[in-house]
């Protein structure tokens, strides 16, 4: 029996599933485009996994989910680890490239920069305001030029001349591209210009004034594009490494993190099993109107049974669920909670006054207080005198 750890990366453009063994060797790898229904795609992916692998020989010991759609899928799968993609990516690349200093990660809708020191992420940046500098930007332009995105990179290398294209905004890039076509630049040159624009954007928005140090790792879906890789190399003047599994690094990283978490806690995986591929999932949400917070509460339902409730700040709705499949995080939370509750029962000493904490910050300056109160008294007297002398002016006194 071999132990396997499942890693699932729910990105905006692709959904990736991998399975790694104890030695971090890949036993299964799947990269699919996200067409908008992540639950179905994950189910399909798992079905494929079942077909490819002799299930009797393997045991799923842990499941990790990352990517922007991680919360929902974590409930669906019964994940042990739910983590953001930055941590996951950093984990995978520092495993394959322990000497890494800088990680460029360009995905479908976001781009990230991770600075690593001695195998630990020490700083990161993420694109802030728009799609410029991401895979979607390239996708859009490829479509516009009628070039399949897979051939984009190679074409860029055929360029003879340099052309500068405004790359900050997808729409403006398009109008600039059209005018550059009129000047007689060829397709490869335009594509090369776009690649350079993307890298320039990345440097301006993410790297800013940071000092980059090698090795340089380039991963994410866009790393398949050798034109962008070349543009990066030109910009920083050093070699850029594209890891073998660059497209599923997030999934590998999260599988590794799941393995770590399961080992550390020593618990069984809360994976809901392969039966889930036959279940129907549904999510509903409503706005709770019990108080001014107006929390948006989300329910995840599997075959008519509620498996997760989240989003409420006071815990009223999530506590109503006695679930078996909530993420590991919330399970451990509940444990702590019961511990706290027993503590509460023990401690029924209601009369005990809480410790009086007089924080420095709140101290009143007694001198100032005396002075102000004295001033106020004087004011009061002055006004009384005024009132005595001229009662008609009273209105004016109140409204100055």
């Amino acid at each position: 029996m071999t132990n396997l750890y499942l890693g699932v990366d729910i990105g905006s453009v692709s959904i990736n599933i991998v399975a790694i063994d104890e030695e971090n060797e890949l036993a299964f790898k799947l990269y699919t485009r996200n067409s908008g229904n992540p639950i179905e795609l994950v189910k399909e992916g798992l079905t494929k996994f079942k077909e490819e692998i002799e299930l009797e020989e393997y045991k799923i010991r842990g499941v990790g989910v990352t990517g922007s759609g991680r919360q929902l899928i974590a409930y669906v799968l019964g994940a042990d680890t739910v983590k953001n993609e930055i941590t996951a990516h950093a984990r995978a690349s520092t495993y394959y490239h322990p000497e890494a200093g800088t990680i460029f990660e360009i995905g479908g809708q976001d781009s990230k920069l991770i600075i690593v020191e001695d195998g630990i992420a020490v700083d990161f940046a993420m694109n802030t305001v728009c799609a410029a500098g991401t895979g979607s930007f390239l996708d859009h332009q490829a479509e516009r030029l009628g070039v399949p995105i897979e051939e984009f990179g190679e074409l860029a290398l055929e360029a003879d001349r340099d052309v500068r294209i405004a790359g900050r905004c997808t729409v403006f890039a398009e109008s600039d591209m059209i005018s550059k076509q009129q000047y007689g630049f060829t397709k490869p040159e335009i594509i090369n210009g776009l690649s350079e624009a993307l890298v320039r954007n990345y440097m301006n928005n993410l790297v800013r004034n940071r000092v980059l140090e090698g090795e340089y790792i380039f991963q994410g879906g866009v790393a398949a594009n050798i034109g962008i890789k070349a543009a990066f190399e030109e910009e920083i003047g050093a070699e850029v490494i594209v890891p073998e599994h660059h497209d599923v690094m997030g999934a590998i990283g999260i599988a590794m993190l799941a393995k770590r978490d399961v080992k550390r806690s020593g618990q069984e995986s809360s994976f809901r099993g392969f039966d889930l591929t036959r279940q129907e999932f549904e999510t509903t949400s409503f706005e709770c109107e019990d108080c001014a917070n107006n929390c948006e509460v989300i329910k995840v339902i599997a075959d008519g049974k509620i498996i997760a409730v989240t989003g409420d700040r006071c815990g009223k709705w999530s506590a109503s669920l006695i679930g078996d499949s909530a993420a590991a995080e919330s399970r451990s939370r509940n444990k702590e909670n019961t511990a706290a509750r027993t503590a509460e029962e023990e401690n029924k000493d209601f009369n005990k006054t809480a410790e009086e904490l007089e924080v420095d910050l709140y101290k009143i300056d007694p001198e100032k207080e005396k002075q102000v109160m004295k001033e106020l008294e004087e004011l009061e007297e002055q006004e009384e005198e005024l009132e005595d002398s001229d009662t008609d002016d009273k209105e004016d006194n109140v409204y100055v």
Partner: protein
Amino acid sequence: MRLSFPYMGPTIVYKKLLELLGHDVVMPPKPNKEIIDLGVKYSPEFACFPFKVITGIYLKLMEKWVDTLVTSGGHGPCRAGYFGEVHKKILQDLGYDVEIIVIDSPHDDYKYFYEVIKRLKGDSSWLQVGRVIKTVYQLTKVLDEIEKKVEILRAYNDKGTINRIWMDAQEEFYQIKNTADIKRIKNKYLNKLAKFDKSIPAEAERYRIGIIGEIYVVLEQSINNQIEEKVNRFGFEVERSQYLTDWIRENIFPFTGKDLEEIEKKGEEFIEADIGGHARSNMGHAIDFKEKGFDGIIHLKPFGCLPELVSQSVADDLSEKYEIPVLSITIDEQTADANVLTRVEAFLDMIKEKDYREVM
């Protein structure tokens, strides 16, 4: 006069202040999607985010026949100083005849402050005013004390349970009549919270994050994507640079100590001139947090905020010199919750990873 005010932080305090002075006070609505949309629609596009939220709140209040709004001013080149005037103009253009009373800090212009208070005091005597301010200050102090405790305990306990206690406490404080009530309720809730004290781990295992930034987004949970709860969720304690007491001490309360000035002085190392808002004191708070042994700083900046834009740039240098990681988050109506969560989580992971080497 039918009075109201912008919603910021635990609003009981302002309501109590105005009520104790004998006014008819309308409780402003808590910012939500509808209010923010309304505010964005009727505000100038390039106004900063707090301005837009407040516009929304005012417009919502107009439905309740409020005729006077009380708000705070700002000092230095920060646009908060113009909020009152511009809001008045927007409301007038929309056909609402309202008056906006702007409270400026007594430290800036004592005479103007005196006149504003004179208007607000109505029929109460000056001595009463003094007492009311003292009671309200007492209340704020207690609220902040409980909130600080909540921000620590939420890191180690079920967030719902702790939030519930905090919400109940705020509700109960609405009923207070005098300082004895304040003390009684305070003890009640601090006792409730004290039962969870055991959950706090040993000093070496505690992680603390300081939150600095523009006062409105730091104080108001409903517009900052509940950043504190997000941080707490990952087992990190939180402390903010700004609490209600700070605002009151700065703007209303005349007899406070000197500690705020000292913190601001620390910030002078990075921002020499007063550029308005809390930019300089934020830098001071960041250094102060580091000195108190905090592990990281989250800097909140509303979109379009000038002073915080400056402090964001300076924060890079501060981070390097004082060796404390800083994460800047820009907040406006476009900010997606998932995005903030990802950044915060990655930031906190980064801080924790530094401390232990893993088994691969």
